[in-house]
């Protein structure tokens, strides 16, 4: 069932280009639009019911903005994405997803294409950016709880010499597990923390959107 290695190299891209990044972000904008009400429902249960609306507003603006930087390099595209999110989303997720993309931009500065190693460094920077801004820890029931295991999965995949596609898929799976694992958690950061014990029993909305972002990365970037 496993295709021959030689073949695999030709079938699957091992690097990510500018166009891939644009496609990833545009695809995610559509995923967010489709999941807008779902994310909002998750947030209504333990927050204030605006996460889907916030993300949709932000990524609509991003999608509208991207054509104007389509010819710029990866870092510029990511920076524009981050800046646009910061100035259109608001709430907790605006600065945090803003930090995600702005840190990815810094980490990818000057790069024409991205290897799996670059991608890992970028997600690492993104994770640290979110922590620096939001001061949450793993297990606080936030978007970090999807992002951190996804990053770990990428690192594990790299050690195992997995292909980019495999690594991205494994990171998406890990993000999904991480999202599911937020269900029993009692929130300690963000609005959900005010509910105390009552926050347990629900998926964290930010973890859900983070999973969707990484899943979109897998499906968009892995297919070349």
């Amino acid at each position, binding site marked *: 069932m496993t295709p021959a290695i030689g073949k695999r190299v030709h079938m699957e891209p091992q690097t990510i280009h500018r166009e891939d990044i644009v496609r990833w972000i545009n695809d995610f904008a559509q995923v967010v639009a489709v999941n807008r009400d779902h994310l*909002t429902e998750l947030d*209504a249960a333990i*927050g*204030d*019911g*605006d996460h889907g*609306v*916030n993300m949709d*507003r932000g990524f609509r603006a991003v999608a509208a903005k991207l054509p104007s930087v389509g010819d710029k390099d990866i870092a510029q595209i990511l920076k524009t994405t981050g800046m646009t999110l*910061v*100035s*259109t*989303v*608001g*709430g*907790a*997720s*605006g*600065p*945090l997803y803003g930090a995600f993309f702005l840190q990815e931009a810094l980490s990818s500065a000057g790069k024409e294409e991205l290897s799996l190693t670059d991608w890992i460094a970028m997600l690492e920077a993104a994770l640290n950016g979110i922590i620096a*801004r*939001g001061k949450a820890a793993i297990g606080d029931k936030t978007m970090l709880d999807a992002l951190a295991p996804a990053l770990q999965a990428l690192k594990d995949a790299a050690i195992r010499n997995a292909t980019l596609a495999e690594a991205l898929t494994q990171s998406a799976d890990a993000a999904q597990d991480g999202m599911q694992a937020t269900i029993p958690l*009692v*929130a*300690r*950061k*963000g*609005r959900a*923390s*005010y*509910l*105390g014990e*009552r926050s347990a029993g629900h998926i964290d909305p930010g973890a859900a959107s983070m999973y969707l972002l990484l899943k979109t990365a897998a499906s968009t970037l892995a297919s070349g």
Partner: protein
Amino acid sequence: MKKLINRADDVVRESLEGFAAAHAGMVRVNFDPIYVARIDAPVRGKVGVISGGGSGHEPLHCGYVGMGMLDAACPGAIFTSPTPDQMLEASKAVDGGAGVLHIIKNYTGDLMNFEMAAELARSEGIEIDTVIIDDDVAVTNSLYTAGRRGVGLTVLAEKITGAAAEERRSLKEVGDICRQVKDWGRSMGMALTSCTAPHIGHAMFELPDDEMEIGIGIHGEPGRKRMPVQPADEITDMLMEPIISDLPYRRGDEVLLFVNGMGGTPLSELYIVYRRAAEIAAQHGLKVVRSLVGPYITSLEMAGCSITLLKMDETLLKLWDAPIKTPGLRWGI
């Protein structure tokens, strides 16, 4: 969902257009990015006082822009904190050379967005001080949460701080007055019903016809506990007890008693709550020297109330009584 709106996406903008038209003599509304500034901003030599937060709490914050209170307010989407560019532009618009104070309600989103705005404003040479209001005693274990929420005290902080700025005090002094209010005030709220955000289209939480939420925030978040509806006096007791025991108020202390409506509660019911709250204050030897009763920081059309107690001294009293001219609060001028 039944609302007096056109499209859910246009609520904030259209509402501000009406607000701008109705109060053209007091305020000026900027639409890109969105902020409301007092008509004569920037006032030379005066500290600019700005605040902001999600929409849906009207008259807070935009209704408090004007002489003696806020120099500018930045409304976000409904229940969503505004973005840094709004606070940056608002800070620039009101900076009269004496610096700008940011009054922030303690919510993760508000904090982060204001923080970014402050970084940007400082990098453009504007001196910024920040005070975070976190008066909600319903949040008990602040170590394991995002900390106490900013609720009713915000209204009092904006009024008193605005009056201090009007006296041409320095940024440091204005900030310290605001910090004193932050330290001296406590609040707690409850809801009889949920509210419906236009973009969601249904109630944020379901509350059976014989139950209420105690310890709610102001964004349609459910509270800390749900229980059968009680008579107003018992509810008032449940709100006052944690407030009074949290701040070590002492017999003889002078206080301002603020009973706030969440948007869908008749004024007559707020006075029934006020009646009991004043009784309890008196039982504790507290002297209610000022009062405020009405829907001043709301959650759309939620039915419910919050109570805020603010310890007063001579300075705060004088600043509270100082003239104010805003769409939402006005006296003395």
